[in-house]
């Protein structure tokens, strides 16, 4: 037992932990009593990060595909092959997929490699869509592209509205802070289409029908504005665009919105009144998987803006990231929609994600670099197989390497210095605690070596040097230094000349421009059931298991928990309300056929109190099942959003 302070590398909460290091290896982990966000707590994932850090399923040597097999080669050979293979292509022929788990330093260098050396704007992040929408809305509305409030201020909020996914499962310590605030007297309301743990812990649960979040948020805004409950003085002093927003709301019909949301108008009115009257209020929603779409995010922002609950103490619209460094990845511009800052990429600077390029017919893509891919589900496998060059950079063994021509190992977060920016914009430094295996380098170094082989000599000799480059590129990081970060538990951006110690929350009074209402755009309507397809099927994450991801399977206890569920339902499951199961004449674990307009799948029934009659839920994480069904059926159901498709469920 010899513990070193660090930051958990799983979700965007960024909890503090103590890694037990002995004999050059990580032996255990303990919650850090003094971290300002986690204050001595960790979730089931965080309590087992030492199992991941001590796994044997590491990539330990550079590999190249020869005669169809990956064979060990020298580091120099692998770098040369990667640089040459990627460098033969430019523009839309080449793309990079950055890892939201990687450090700011890694992703800064990968972005620089893509944009300045490979000459492509096509740099994407896995699991980025939902957060990209939040960045977009907050940038437009507040000029402040991340959480407006702070996790450390949750206990100052008198009303907390959780929208969508189960924050108690996805970001348990954020869920815990919200629960603690509610125990101390804050009003907690959940708005979601499924019963979740945070819904069970809430004083009120507004249980929408699938697809009902957006009309519910529009209805709340309409009630708030039309009853005159908006904060007129705040809007006059700090905001613009209110008249257009009110006009857009006037064109909506409250009865229609309530019906589409599946909620009683009285319940919506009650919440709108409480929101207006609360002295402070925060909204939370998880981004990425089970996140909100752009329109719902815009409506949520507008609702809180109208209520005057932005840029004040205990207030804020707060996207919560599912992976540790999604915020930082956006900050350094590791995405095709935004450049470092993040600021919107326009014209030729705007690129596409590898997934978007692969979806094109025919795909222009010829070469691809992928870092640390978490997901198990590989879309477009045939197109990936046809690429001229696939380079994989990562710490752990990964099924994706089957597509790779070159594999380059990378150090884990415990084996190198690096910074990670959590959901509340807290830039935190993880120091190297153990040596990487012989011949394994940090990813930022790998990208620099690939660049060097393409003739670009980058001066940064350490992760700290890379941070100096980031500080010169990203205005919100302008005054960041490792020494400054190390004084406490990181700093919340903006960290610049005006805020040398960072900023806990967005401050409307000190903002350089007025807040703006963000148009939600045209209403696509909600899916409707019919006689032939009487159920609305939602797809999402299973409660317990995180990001259906590759790395959780390299742990022992979390993997056991994952397997416990898989063993019960080896072919996957569909959750149905008990009354629906009874009407169908099926018991728990009985086989059923889920039929959509374009296809069908066989799964087992899981009777659950978490879905309402007339709705069904499938977890997305079970490979081959849901994506197979959805792809074969030609159905689009976006796992990231509150969407659903009409289906029929047949016995047997």
């Amino acid at each position, binding site marked *: *037992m010899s513990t070193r302070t660090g930051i958990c590398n799983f979700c965007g909460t960024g909890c503090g932990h*103590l890694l037990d290091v002995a004999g050059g290896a990580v032996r255990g982990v303990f919650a850090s009593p003094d971290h300002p966000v986690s204050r*001595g*707590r960790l*979730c*089931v994932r965080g*309590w087992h990060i030492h199992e991941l850090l001590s796994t044997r399923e590491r990539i330990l040597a550079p590999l190249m595909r020869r005669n169809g097999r990956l064979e060990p080669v020298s580091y120099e050979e692998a770098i040369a092959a990667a640089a040459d293979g990627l460098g033969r292509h430019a523009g839309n022929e080449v793309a990079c997929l950055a890892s939201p788990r990687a450090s700011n330093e890694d992703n800064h260098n990968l972005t620089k490699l893509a944009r300045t050396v490979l000459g492509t704007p096509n740099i994407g992040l896995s699991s980025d869509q939902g957060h990209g929408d939040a960045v977009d809305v907050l940038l437009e509305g507040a000029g402040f592209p991340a959480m407006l409030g702070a996790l450390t201020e949750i206990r100052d909020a008198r009303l907390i509205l959780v929208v969508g996914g189960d924050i108690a499962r996805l970001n348990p310590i954020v869920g815990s802070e919200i629960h603690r605030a509610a125990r101390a007297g804050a009003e907690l309301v959940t708005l979601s289409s499924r019963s979740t743990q945070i819904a069970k812990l809430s004083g009120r649960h507004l249980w929408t029908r699938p697809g009902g979040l957006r009309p519910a948020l529009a209805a709340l805004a309409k009630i708030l504005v039309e009853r005159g409950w908006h904060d007129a003085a705040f809007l006059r002093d700090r905001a613009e665009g209110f008249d257009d927003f009110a006009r857009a709301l006037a064109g909506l019909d409250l009865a229609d919105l309530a019906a589409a949301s599946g909620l009683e108008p009285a319940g919506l009115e009650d919440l709108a009144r409480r929101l207006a009257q609360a002295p402070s209020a925060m909204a939370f929603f998880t981004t990425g998987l089970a996140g909100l779409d752009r329109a719902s995010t815009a409506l949520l922002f507008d609702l809180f803006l109208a209520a005057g609950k932005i840029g004040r103490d205990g207030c804020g619209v707060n996207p919560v990231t599912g992976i540790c460094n999604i915020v930082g990845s956006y900050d350094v511009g590791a995405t095709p929609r935004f450049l470092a800052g993040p600021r919107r990429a326009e014209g030729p600077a705007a690129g596409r994600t590898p997934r978007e390029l692969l979806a094109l017919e025919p795909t222009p893509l010829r070469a691809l670099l992928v870092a640390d891919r978490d997901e198990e589900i590989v879309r477009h496998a045939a197109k990936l197989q046809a690429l001229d060059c696939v380079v994989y950079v990562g710490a752990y063994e990964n099924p994706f390497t089957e597509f790779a021509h070159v594999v380059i190992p990378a150090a884990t977060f415990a084996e190198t210095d690096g910074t990670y920016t959590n959901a509340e914009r807290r830039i935190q430094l993880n120091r190297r605690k153990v040596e990487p295996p012989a011949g394994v380098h940090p990813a930022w170094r790998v990208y620099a070596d690939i660049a060097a082989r393409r003739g670009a000599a980058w001066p940064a000799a350490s992760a700290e040097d890379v941070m100096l480059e980031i500080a010169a590129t990203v205005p919100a990081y302008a005054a960041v230094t490792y020494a400054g970060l190390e004084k406490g538990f990181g700093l919340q951006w903006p960290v610049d000349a005006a805020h040398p110690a960072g900023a806990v929350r967005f401050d409307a009074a000190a903002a350089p421009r007025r807040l703006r209402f963000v148009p939600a755009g045209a209403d696509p309507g909600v899916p409707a059931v019919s006689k032939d397809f009487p159920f609305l099927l939602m797809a999402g994450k299973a409660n317990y298991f995180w990001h259906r991801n590759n790395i959780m399977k390299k742990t022992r206890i979390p993997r056991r928990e994952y397997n416990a569920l898989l*063993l019960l339902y080896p072919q996957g499951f569909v959750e149905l309300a008990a009354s629906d199961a009874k009407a169908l004449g099926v018991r728990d674990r009985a086989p059923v056929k889920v039929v959509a307009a374009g296809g069908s799948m066989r799964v087992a029934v899981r009777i659950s109190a978490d879905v309402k009659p007339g709705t069904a839920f499938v977890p997305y994480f079970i490979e081959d099942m849901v994506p197979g069904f959805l792809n074969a059926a030609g159905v689009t159901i976006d796992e990231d959003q509150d969407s659903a498709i009409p289906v029929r469920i047949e016995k047997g």
Partner: protein
Amino acid sequence: MYIMPKSQARALAAALAEEYDLYGPVLREASGEPTFDRVEDPAAIRLEAAIPYNPPKSVVFPQAERVLSYRYDREAKKAVFVRDDLVRPKALVGLRACDLSGLLCLDRFYLGQDYVDEFYRDHRKRMFIVANTCVRPFPQCFCVCTDSGPAPREGFDVALTAAGDDYLVEAGSEKGQALTRRLGLKDAGPGAAARRAAIVDASIASFDGAAMENKAWISRVMNRITTGFISNDVWEYIGDQCFECGACSFVCPTCSCFNVEDIDSREGRTDRVRSWDSCSYEGYTRMAGEHNPRRPVEDRRNKRFFCKLSYSQSKKYLRPGCVGCGRCNRVCPGDIGIANVVTYIRREITKAGAK
């Protein structure tokens, strides 16, 4: 009873460091929060520190420990077993009474039953324990309700009790006696035992004002839990607040459950690793044939509090399974540390009584 100036505590630790790996309470640089850790420099041990955030459990029961390694030779059809023997003698300096009680619980679980756990025994057998009386309680404490403090009663080699500028030093073993001789400690005189008793009494008396959980109603709740007269609503109220993180088990000085897994390597070696486990996990009670007697979370929580507070379980430990350290309250993402659970059950008892 001996007496030692406080300034000599460092010499005591330094003397032990010659023979043992030192462990003790240290203060985290960033915040001053105490943790129990391996100490290279005897001066880093802070005897006056509050209860460390982590219990000393991992010294005898590591979070993950390789207990066996084997390699199977296919041609010879023979397995070659390798046993690590890296266990070093350890001195735990500054153990609070609750944590010492926890260690004794673990002893009874691992050593005191039909089967003696040799891995635990190896960690435990060459050990020197310096216990430390809590002359005042900390806000989270309720050891007076669980019969585990504030003063150590057994199981130590040396016990310290702060008395002004000195420590009263009690030797609890031959090894302890030898240390007092080696340090040249003076006899504390005839009034020492009474002086120590007065200090302990004053500490107990100050629980009322200083400790938040001192009226934890442990004995009434033990009765209820043992007889099972607790309504399902209470367990559901508790279950809804369980985030299934496992922290309560990991910070508990007496939780001893573990999981064992064989981990293969590509080179043909297999490691058998035992790791901490927790009854808050669904997979913990899953049996072959997919049967799970405790699948709903409230059933799993109910199991934990039965283990800590029932009479039948206490018979195994010869004391309650809870030592009153209050750590589970601090780490719980819900609000169901043991003191709170006792409160929820007490509320039900009082409500029932009012009817």
